[in-house]
């Protein structure tokens, strides 16, 4: 199977983020890492390849720094990589990002495309599904398991409230992968050494520009959410406290 894995570089989880002067985006001088669900998507692609043979290709869109996620993918075992390299990709909406990805792979024949289920920075959870629609492929989201069947695949979708569901679907298809579907491997030193010699195709903004349209949504500004924890002390007899707690569990924590 030939599998494309869409990966994104996002600010490190504990990176101290600051707003830019205009308040429209973060300042870019932070440390970055691979979007965690994308790491699971890559791992799953590598496992599928180990089982069924084929090729794993990693793709990302972003400035020069984002090449790091592709190197990491290559070090872990991806066969080659595609880098849509331009700082301008950061500002695209999900539709345009998917259009750019689709344009970059128009001459390729993939059986499967994996993405993480969402990104840790913007968290729109859209790119994979939009890409499927642009390609005219079926898709399934929040996938916890993938098996090959005769002419297609059988996937396990995570639903809400502890429910799951198996879905049979034909190929080619797009799947968005849930974190925790597998156990991530480490990049071995031998893999890291070999990664240097694996092919990395660069795609410029100009090459995909004809496929893009105007952004249909715009982040006007970012701000710091007000809420910090204000501890509320609940008082009264135990039975009263129990009632108050249940109210909080229902209406505030929303776990009941």
């Amino acid at each position: 199977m030939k599998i494309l894995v869409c990966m994104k570089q996002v600010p490190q989880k504990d990176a101290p983020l600051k707003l830019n002067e205009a308040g429209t985006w973060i300042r870019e001088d932070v440390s970055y890492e691979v979007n965690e669900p994308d790491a699971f998507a890559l791992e799953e692609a590598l496992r599928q390849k180990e089982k069924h043979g084929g090729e794993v290709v990693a793709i990302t869109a972003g400035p020069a720094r984002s090449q790091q996620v592709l190197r990491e993918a290559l070090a872990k075992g991806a066969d080659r990589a595609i880098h849509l390299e331009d700082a301008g990709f950061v500002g695209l909406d999900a539709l345009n990002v998917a259009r750019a990805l689709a344009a970059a792979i128009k001459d390729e024949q993939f059986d499967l495309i994996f993405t993480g289920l969402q990104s840790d920075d913007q968290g729109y959870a859209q790119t994979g599904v939009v890409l499927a629609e642009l390609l005219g492929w079926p898709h399934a989201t929040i996938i916890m398991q993938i098996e090959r069947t005769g002419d297609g695949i059988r996937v396990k979708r995570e639903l809400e409230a502890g429910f799951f569901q198996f879905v049979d679907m034909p190929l080619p298809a797009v799947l968005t992968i849930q974190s925790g579907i597998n156990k991530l491997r480490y990049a071995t030193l031998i893999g890291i050494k070999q990664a240097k010699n694996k092919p990395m195709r660069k795609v410029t903004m100009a090459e995909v520009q004809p496929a893009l349209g105007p952004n249909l949504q715009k982040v006007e500004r970012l701000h710091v959410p007000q809420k910090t924890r204000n501890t509320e002390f609940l008082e009264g007899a135990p039975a009263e406290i129990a009632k108050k707690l249940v109210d909080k569990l229902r209406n505030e924590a929303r776990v009941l």
Partner: protein
Amino acid sequence: MATVSATPKSKISGGSFLLENRSASDVFTPEDFTEQHQLIAQTAEDFAANEIVPNIEKMEHKDFSISRDLLKKAGELGLSSAEIPEVYGGMELDKVTASIIADHIAKYAGFATTWGGHTGIGTLPIVYFGSEEQKKKYLPRLASGEIVGAYALSEASSGSDALNCRARAELSADGKYYVLNGEKMWITNAGFADLFTVFAKIGGEKFTAFLVEKTFPGFSIGAEEHKMGIRGSSTCPLILNDCQAPVENVLGEIGKGHVIAFNILNVGRFKLGAMCVGGARVSLENAVQYAKQRKAFGKVIADFGLVREKIASMAALIFVGESLVYRTVGMMDDALSQIDKHAPGADKETRKAIEEYAVECSIIKVWGSEMIDYVVDETVQIYGGYGFVEEYPAERAYRDARINRIFEGTNEINRLIIAGFLLKRAASGQLPLMPAIKKLMDEVMSGASTEDFEGPLSEERKLVSSAKNLTLFAAGVASQKYMQSIQDQQEVMGAIADMVIEVYAMESATLRAQKIAEQSASSAMLPIAMTRVYLSQAMEKMESAARKVVAAAADGDTLRAQSAILRRLAKHDPINTIQLRQEISQKVIERGKYALN
């Protein structure tokens, strides 16, 4: 390789930092890590965080099955064989990589000791001195972690003076093996290692190294030592009772065991520096996290100036430590990249290239081990009472750090190496120390003005230059007084070593900060603040050491004249380190750990 620029650089000679002013482009820094270095750092960091840290408790309680498992996992990832050639199953990577791995593995000192014992003194003797057969037989399995290595040099009554060893070896009647008798002490990994480099004297005279497998007849291991720290590592005596080692297991040449014994510590010492930096980083993170949570008088203690001052000092030291370690291994890599690894005698060339920087490696070891002791001590202080109980990590780190000043050559031995090596090189003409001292003395006498510096950190570079002059001056005064017998004046040698150490530390930090500043002024603010804080405290040490030397070497009018010169050389304007430490601690506390961005 880790060369910063594509063109090969002229090799920098060891110890030359004392005499020559370097530019920022000459030094390798963590900011110069390649993509490959960063990926390997990530793997090492993930391995430490996910595999080592969750198992700390078990290893502290001496469950060494965990340690062996971890060595196997590390081996499979390639983390244990950066310094083993590819043909023997190793990764054959540069020393920057070896240091990066050590730096991250050091998250937990107990396992770091195990790993360091295995990959360093347990493996490198074969890498550098093994025969082709020995390398083929042992290195692939050491690389993969299938077998574990250890190194047995010390004895109950010989440590730094290893040549006084009592263990003996006699050739068997049939000439097929040596019969070893004696007892070795403080053997890291002894409890579970498979292969030991054991030193013994053949016929009570010829000091020789042997590769001894634990299954050899007559070989046994004594009880675990009850140690102050690094309890997660195994340390036992080793008992040789008519132990039979085949003649083909003699390592290196008969009677040349001292070459191995002296060199193997030199070729591995740089990683100890890296480990001290890694350990200090973890300690600071713990301290900061605690300070941000712990409240006193209605606010978190991270808001108190005296706590912030500690945090800033610790962070500045870690910055300097990184600068020292990676500058040094960067130089080594430059030198090593010029060696054809497949040519005959490549092992020896490699060893020589590393030994070239013996002074720098000793500096890293001494400076790093004293730095981490300061950091873990202040961490205990920040934790207060909680720092004194076992449930919190400060206490363990405090105990664990202490051994670093003792093993791999005590800091005292290393200070003598630092001063002695420079004086030896000066005597042999390899290092033009004496002409430099003379030139300085002439300048001092004629009142010539000092060199001017321009650009970023010019003040700091000027201070580094003053520090060098101060050191040369003290060394000059001492040489005049003691001549050849200076080697016997350990206190003077120690003071000179202290000054040399500070010069290297000051310069490494300054050049790194300058290099960062040349890239981006905004990201240099913290590095510059850290550098200035460090330089300020280092200059105080320099002055006091210089004064000690001068006062010992002269008296009366001479002393007064020399003190005046000393004061002139050390002259610098005070800086507001309170303000600088405020700025540093602000960032570190905000970030919750040591970080430059």
